[in-house]
C-alpha cells in the first residue's frame, strides 16, 4: 500500500528476478567447475568429453522437467527412475522381438509406458487423495518388482537394438548431441507453457496455496493428474533414450535416478514445498550435478566424493533458499513497520 513497500518489493520480491538470479548463479558455478577442472585435466574440455557430459545431463534434465511440474504442485514423483528402467527394457524387448520395427515406434511405446504409469500415479494422488510421496514410492517398488519379473535375467544388448535407434544416442548436429537437443526442446516447450499458459500458472497456484487455488476455480485434481502424466511420459521418453544411449539394459537401469532428479530440481531452485521454480533452473541443476560428477571423475577423485558433494550442494541450495526468503519477508516487514511509525 505504501510507496516504501512497493519500492522495496520491486527491488527484492519480483517473482522472476530472484529465480533469474538463481539461474545465473548456477551458470556461474557451472563455468567455475568446468574451468577449474579443465586447468587440472585438459582432456575435460575436448569435444567428446563435453558431448558425453551433455548427453548424460540430458536424461536427468528431461526427468527434471517432469519432476518440476509435479513438485511445483506440492507433490513429488519418486517413480521416474523405475519408469526409465521399465520403459528402456520394454522398448528394447520390442526391438528384440521385432527387429524390423520402426525407430519411432520405440519412442511411442516408451512414452506410452510412462504415460500409463503417470496416469495411475496421478489418479491415486488426485482422485483418491493419497499423498504422492507414498503413491510414487509404492509405484517405484512395484515397477522394480515387475521389471525383475519381465526381465527374468535376460539382458538387452546392443545386438538387439536397431542401429538407427542406437545412432540417436551418439549422433550430433553441429557437434551437439541429439539427446541434448531433444532435452533442450523439452525444456523450452514446457518452460514456455509453464510461464505463458493459464494451465501452467495453475500449477504454481496449486503449489502456492491449494485451498485458494480451488476457491479461484482452478481444476486442482485435473492439473495434478496432468502433471503426473507428463512427468511419467517424459520418464518414458527418457527410458527410450536411455536405451539409445547405453544400448544395453538390465534390471538396474535407472536405479537411483529419482533422488538424483529431485536433487537436481531443488539445486535448480524449485521449492521443495511447491509454488515456485522453473524448468530452466531444474535443467541447469541437472547439468551442474552431472558436470560435477564428471569433473570429479576427470580429476581422479574417488567416486564416493561424488554423492557427498551432490548432497552438500543440495543442503547448500535449500539453506540458501530459506535464508533468501526469510530476508525478503523481513525486509518487506521492516519497510512496512517503518512506514507505520511515520
Amino acid at each position, binding site marked *: *500500500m*505504501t*510507496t516504501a*513497500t*512497493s519500492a522495496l*518489493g*520491486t527491488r527484492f*520480491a*519480483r*517473482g522472476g528476478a530472484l529465480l533469474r538470479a538463481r539461474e545465473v548463479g548456477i551458470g556461474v558455478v557451472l563455468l567455475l567447475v568446468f574451468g577449474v577442472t579443465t586447468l587440472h585435466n585438459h582432456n575435460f574440455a575436448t569435444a567428446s568429453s563435453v558431448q558425453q557430459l551433455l548427453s548424460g545431463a540430458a536424461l536427468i534434465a528431461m526427468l527434471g522437467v517432469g519432476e518440476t511440474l509435479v513438485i511445483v504442485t506440492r507433490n513429488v514423483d519418486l517413480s521416474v527412475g523405475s519408469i526409465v528402467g521399465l520403459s528402456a527394457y520394454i522398448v528394447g524387448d520390442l526391438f528384440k522381438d521385432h527387429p524390423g520395427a520402426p525407430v519411432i515406434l520405440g519412442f511411442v511405446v516408451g512414452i506410452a509406458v510412462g504415460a500409463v504409469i503417470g496416469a495411475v500415479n496421478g489418479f491415486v494422488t488426485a482422485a483418491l487423495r493419497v499423498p504422492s510421496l507414498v503413491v510414487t514410492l509404492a509405484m517405484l517398488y512395484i515397477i522394480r518388482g515387475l521389471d525383475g519379473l519381465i526381465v527374468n535375467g535376460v539382458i538387452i544388448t546392443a545386438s538387439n537394438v536397431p542401429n538407427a535407434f542406437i545412432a540417436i544416442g551418439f549422433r550430433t548436429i553441429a557437434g551437439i548431441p541429439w539427446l541434448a537437443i531433444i532435452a533442450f526442446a523439452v525444456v523450452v516447450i514446457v518452460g514456455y507453457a509453464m*510461464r*505463458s*499458459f*493459464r494451465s501452467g*500458472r*495453475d500449477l*504454481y*497456484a496449486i*503449489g*502456492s*496455496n491449494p*485451498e*485458494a*487455488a*480451488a*476457491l*479461484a*476455480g*482452478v481444476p486442482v485434481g485435473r492439473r495434478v493428474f496432468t502433471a503426473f502424466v507428463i512427468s511419467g511420459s517424459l520418464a518414458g521418453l527418457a527410458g527410450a533414450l536411455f536405451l539409445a544411449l547405453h544400448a544395453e539394459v538390465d534390471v538396474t537401469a535407472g536405479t537411483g535416478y529419482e533422488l538424483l532428479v529431485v536433487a537436481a530440481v531443488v539445486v535448480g531452485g524449485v*521449492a521443495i514445498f511447491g*509454488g*515456485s521454480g522453473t524448468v530452466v533452473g531444474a535443467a541447469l541443476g541437472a547439468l551442474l550435478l552431472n558436470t560435477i560428477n564428471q569433473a570429479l571423475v576427470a580429476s581422479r577423485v574417488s567416486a564416493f566424493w561424488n554423492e557427498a558433494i551432490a548432497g552438500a550442494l543440495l543442503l547448500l541450495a535449500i539453506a540458501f533458499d530459506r535464508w533468501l*526468503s526469510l530476508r*525478503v*519477508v523481513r*525486509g*518487506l*516487514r521492516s519497510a*512496512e513497520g517503518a512506514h507505520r511509525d511515520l
Partner: protein
Amino acid sequence: MNEQPEGVGGVHGKPRLALDQAAKAFGAVQALVDGSITLFPGEAHALVGENGAGKSTLVKILAGVYQPDSGTLAIDGQPVVLNGPNAARDAGISIIYQEPTLFPDLTVAENIFMGRQPLRAGRRIDRPAMNRDAGEIFTRLGVALDPQRQARGLSVADQQIVEIAKALSSHANVLVMDEPTAALTTVEVERLFEVIRALRREGAAVLFISHRLEEVFAVCQRVTIMRDGRFVRTAAVGDITVDEIIRSMVGRDLDELFPKTQVAVGEVVLQVEQLGREGVLHDISFSVRRGEIVALAGLVGAGRSEVARAIFGIDRRSAGVVTVRGKVLPNGSPLASMAAGVALVPEDRRQQGLVMDLGIDRNVALASLARLSHFGLISRTRERDLAATWANRLQLKFGRLTNAVSTLSGGNQQKVVLSKWLARDPALLIIDEPTRGIDVGTKAEVHRILDGLVADGLAVLMISSELPEVLGMADRILVMREGRITAELSRAEASEDLVMRAATGQLKAAAA
C-alpha cells in the same frame, strides 16, 4: 457515515441477489436451516449472528463451494444454480474470505487474475496487459501497490486490497466480505470503508459480515440477523438499535452479558511497585485483591500486555518489585511466577495458549504435568480425569475429550485455556483480551465464569480493548497511556467517556 436510507428498508429497485430458505446439512449436523437474504444494487448489507449461526455456510453457498440441499437463489430475478466457484464468479459474485486466500509465490497481478488472465494470440497470457489492468484497479481503489511484486510479505490489509481488486477485476456486482476487518487497524478499517462506499456508488451490492456492530452502523444500510442456522430478521440500520440486534442474535437480554456478583474484597494478592521497563513501562504501581477484578484499559500499544508480561516474567523488568501473596517474584522467570500462583491467559489463544493439534485433555493437563506424573511418566487416567472435571465445571461443549482443540469454536477454546490454568489452582489470574474473537453468547459465558471465579476468591487482572467489557466486569479500572497509568477509576465512577479521555491523554489528574 451518514448514509440516508431511501425508501422502505433503506433500499429501492429490483434485488440483485435473493437467497430464499436455503438449507444445508453435513451428516447429522444441520448447519443451515433457513438461509435467506436479499441484496439490492448499491447497498452495503450486514450479516450478523453468533459463531455457528450459519453465516459461513451461507457465504459458501453464495461462493458456489457448497450446494444447498434445498432453497432457491435468484440473481437479477433469474433462478440460478451455482455448482462451483467458477459458476459463482460468472454470476458476478465475489467472495473476500476472512483469511485472505492469496498465492504467496505469485505476483500481485497474477493473484488478481488467476484463472482469468488476459490472453493474447495462441491463448498465451498477456502479462503487460495483466500488470496494467491490475495497476488501473489499484489506482481506482486509491492504493499504491506494485502489481509485479510477490504477494509474500504483504500486510493483512494489503492482502485484503488484493482480494478486493480480484473481485473488481472479475466485474463482480455482488461482493461478500467475511469479517474483513478482524485483523485491521483503525486506519485500515476506515480505508476499507472508503472502498466499500466507492463500490456502492458504482452500483455493487456488498454483503458485510462482522462481529463489530459499530462497523455495521458505520458502513451498512441494512442488517440481516441470523441465529441457529435461521434467518431472524432484516432491518434498516436506522430502524434498529444495537441492543435489539444483540437480543435477536443471542435470544436474550444485554444485561445478562455482564453478570456481576457482589463479592467481599479480601487481602492483597498482587502488589506491583514502581514497575518499569526501559522505554516501554514507567512507574507502574497498583494492587489486586482477593475477590476483585482489576481491568487494564487503554488503546492498543499503551503497554497493557507489556505489564502482564513483565509481571509474569516473560519480559525482564528494569525497575520495580512485584509481590504475590507477600512473596517477591524473581525477575524474568515465568516458572517462578507459576509456582507463586500466577496464571497468564494470553491474548492469542491459537499461537500462545493452545497446542491446536492436541486433544482437549492434553491441553488442559499441559500446565499441571508435574502433578499428574509418577516418576516422570504421565498418567493418562489422571490427565483425563482432570480434563473431565474442568470441562464439566466450565460447561465446555465438545464431542470427546481427545478431540483436537482446533475443532472447537473460539469460545470453547478459550475455556480450554482457562481450564489449563485454573487446574493449577492459581491465586492470581492475568487474562489478556478474554473474549476476543468470541461470539456474543459465549462471551457472556466467559464473563459468568470469571465472575464465578472471583466469587470463589480468585484475584483477576483483566486486559481488554472492549470498553463495555471493562465497564461491565471490572471492580476497578486502571487506564494506561504510553506505558504509564493515567487514571484509576472505581466501578461506580467509571464511564466510557472518562476511560477514553484518560486513554487519549485528555484527563489531567488521576482520579485516584
